[in-house]
């Protein structure tokens, strides 16, 4: 279930759609909550964000993701399926850098579990991001607190 979390470059709609296909095997799951995170064209100290470059400690991402999925399924027993995709490498402003998909029997647990997944991805997965500005300078972001 945790295979293919890390995607080289932006997460495409095709990846998300393929991810959704797996959800057809759960006819008792009435609610699917999806979160899609995109790189914003932010202005940081007068500089425009052109892209974010993500790097990851891949073996540990797989391992920690499995722990996240287990803990969320324990907290929300209605959850049937969880998928997470996260970019490594360059993702331009406007492109998708992560997607989380959660199916549950009813919508409340699908939505709550999806929110929790996204929060945990940000603080628990060994992924780092570097903002690259249009003037080609860059800055490492260190803003997620565990």
């Amino acid at each position, binding site marked *: 279930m945790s295979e293919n979390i890390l995607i080289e470059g932006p997460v495409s709609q095709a990846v998300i759609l393929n991810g959704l296909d797996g959800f057809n095997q759960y006819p008792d799951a009435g609610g699917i909550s999806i979160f899609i995170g995109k790189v914003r064209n932010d202005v940081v100290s007068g500089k425009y964000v052109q892209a974010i470059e993500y790097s990851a400690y891949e073996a540990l991402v797989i391992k920690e993701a499995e722990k996240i999925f287990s803990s969320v399924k324990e907290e929300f027993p209605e959850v049937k399926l969880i998928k997470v995709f996260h970019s490594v490498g360059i993702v331009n402003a406007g492109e998708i850098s992560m997607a989380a998909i959660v199916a549950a029997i009813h919508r409340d647990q699908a939505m709550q579990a999806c929110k929790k997944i996204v929060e945990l991805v*940000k603080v628990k997965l060994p992924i780092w991001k570097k903002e690259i500005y249009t003037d080609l300078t860059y800055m490492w972001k260190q803003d997620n607190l565990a």
Partner: protein
Amino acid sequence: MEIKVFFFGILGDIAKTGFKHYRNITSFHDLEHRIEDDYPEFVHYTYRIAVNNEITDEKPDLKDGDQVALMPPFSGG
């Protein structure tokens, strides 16, 4: 013993490499000193340690061939 050390995030930028082999290491304490000697700038950064893909919040006991990762605060998403 020989230890392979991985530098992630900004630490890799500073070290100008993603990893480095340290030889004749006697303890984790010894390894820390060797890394600090190589990259004195590291003292300005906080990072967590993983040994063989396992996050540890203690000073680990190392054995020959261990892989140590230095990980700045995560910032995925």
